[in-house]
């Protein structure tokens, strides 16, 4: 599934806010079709890096390429080729399910016929047809998150960035959410995900661990467990971050 063809390339990425170094010389590649886990303590610099990779913030220095486009000069192209969702912002609460889909389809520049076909297919698959005209605010959190993810990949992006997508979600929905991630990967979408649930780190093909602005470990969960002599990723994380 993974053919080591990079869809994200990061070389010497630095981001400073005044004297504070949020990202201190990051170097990594994300391959096409992989689930790339981005783990780290609060304030380690994860969100800063994601914002740069999504074209929302300019790095201080370094070379970065996302989905084949340069991070300095082609941010609009990048935005068309990625999807994004987070726990904090996903969908508009005051719009209905259908209106949200229409809105995001429009933002991503999808053709009307394509959007309509995909909407039907998506609502069918999520079992949400009956709730098409319900406001997002009335839906349970778990449904919202599943819907938000499906909308983030509605335009079939090359990469989808998920920033703590499962925070506070019940354990059944959390697993259904990961099944959606696997399905997206099977369609060839690359997944870049952050999480505080260490069992979810196990579901990633590779995991990078950030601490104080630097990447201190990057490998498959299996290799990391071996390297740190740990029984699970929780232990790996504790050993590294403490």
């Amino acid at each position, binding site marked *: 599934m993974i053919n080591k063809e990079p869809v994200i390339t990061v070389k010497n990425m630095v981001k400073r806010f005044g004297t504070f170094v949020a990202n201190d010389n990051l170097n990594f590649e994300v391959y096409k079709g992989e689930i790339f886990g981005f783990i780290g*303590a609060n*304030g380690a610099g994860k969100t800063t890096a994601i914002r740069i990779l999504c074209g929302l913030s300019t790095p201080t220095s370094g070379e970065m390429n996302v989905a084949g486009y340069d991070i300095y000069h082609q941010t609009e192209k990048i935005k068309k080729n990625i999807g994004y969702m987070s726990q904090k912002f996903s969908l508009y609460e005051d719009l209905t399910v259908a209106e949200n889909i229409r809105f995001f389809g429009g933002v991503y520049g999808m053709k009307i016929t394509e959007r309509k076909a995909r909407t039907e297919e998506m609502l069918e698959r999520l079992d949400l047809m009956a709730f098409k005209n319900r406001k997002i605010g009335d839906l349970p959190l778990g449904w919202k998150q599943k819907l938000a993810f499906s909308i983030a990949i509605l335009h079939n992006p090359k990469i989808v960035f998920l920033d703590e997508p499962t*925070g506070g*979600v*019940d*354990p059944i929905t959390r697993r259904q959410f*990961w099944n959606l991630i696997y399905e997206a990967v099977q369609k060839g979408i690359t997944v870049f995900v952050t999480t505080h649930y260490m*069992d979810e780190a*196990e579901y990633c093909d590779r995991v990078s661990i950030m601490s104080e602005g630097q990447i201190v470990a990057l490998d498959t969960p299996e290799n990391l467990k071996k390297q740190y002599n740990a029984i699970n990723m929780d232990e790996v*994380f504790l050993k590294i971050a403490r």
Partner: protein
Amino acid sequence: MIEVQNIRKQYGDVVALENVSLSIQRGELFGLIGPDGAGKTTLMRILMSLLLPTAGSASMDNLDVVKDYKKVRLITGYMPGRFSLYPDLTVEENLKFFATVFGTTIEENDHLIKDIYQQIEPFKTRRAGQLSGGMKQKLALSCALIHKPEILILDEPTTGVDAVSRKEFWEMLKRLKNMGITILVSTPYMDEATLCDRIALIQEGKIMSVATPEEMMHSFPEDLWTVRSRKIYNTSKILEIIPSLISVNSFGQVLHLVTAKGQHTTESIREFLTKNGENDIIVESDKATIEDVFILLMQKHNQTV
């Protein structure tokens, strides 16, 4: 110490809490475990006299939370889910403010907060709004403790906090419990449940179960198996059609397979998998975690709806 009797809370058509009853002992570290929207915050806000229940009653140290709300507030410390200190005041100013409101001083209750406050003291002239998540959490806990409360109510103190800070926070709670403070804490992280003396599992406004974590895990009514395989996703798809299946879920690098009591052995499961083309599988009988218990209770609840 905390008595909740048949509490119901309704917002329009939405029932946030349905007939909730709980009894929490003095000195207990009690966990309210459930996902977002389960009703944890609503219950805590009722106990803190910030919301009125639609029906039912609750008391803390024999003080009614509605009638005696002023007295209740004096004996309780509360840490809401959203950071609610003054972002424009410094760390020290926030702490002083809360001490003054309760007619005490930082010095008087220094022994209570020392352990926690020490960690943020180097930043005491920094504005609270400028602190990192972990530091905000420690300051909020210090402020909740400054008037030496008998009861602490903490609403999701570890949500969105990384695994290391979460561990540290629970160690702090243990120490406070040992000082005799009764603690009611809510969390969506199932793995934190085992750190409590007793827990209530809450979902959609209803308490599904109350017990010690050990009791809950031991009284798991079905058989649970850990299944290891190289292609976990494929294996889980195949297990979805095994006879007597109750559920199959991924738990990190392994699968947890739950089947009806007494219907399977490790051999019969392995046989089933081999027949369906899955080799190199390890099947072991295992004990349920709190998350397994929660999933099972949720499943049963969904079936009856």
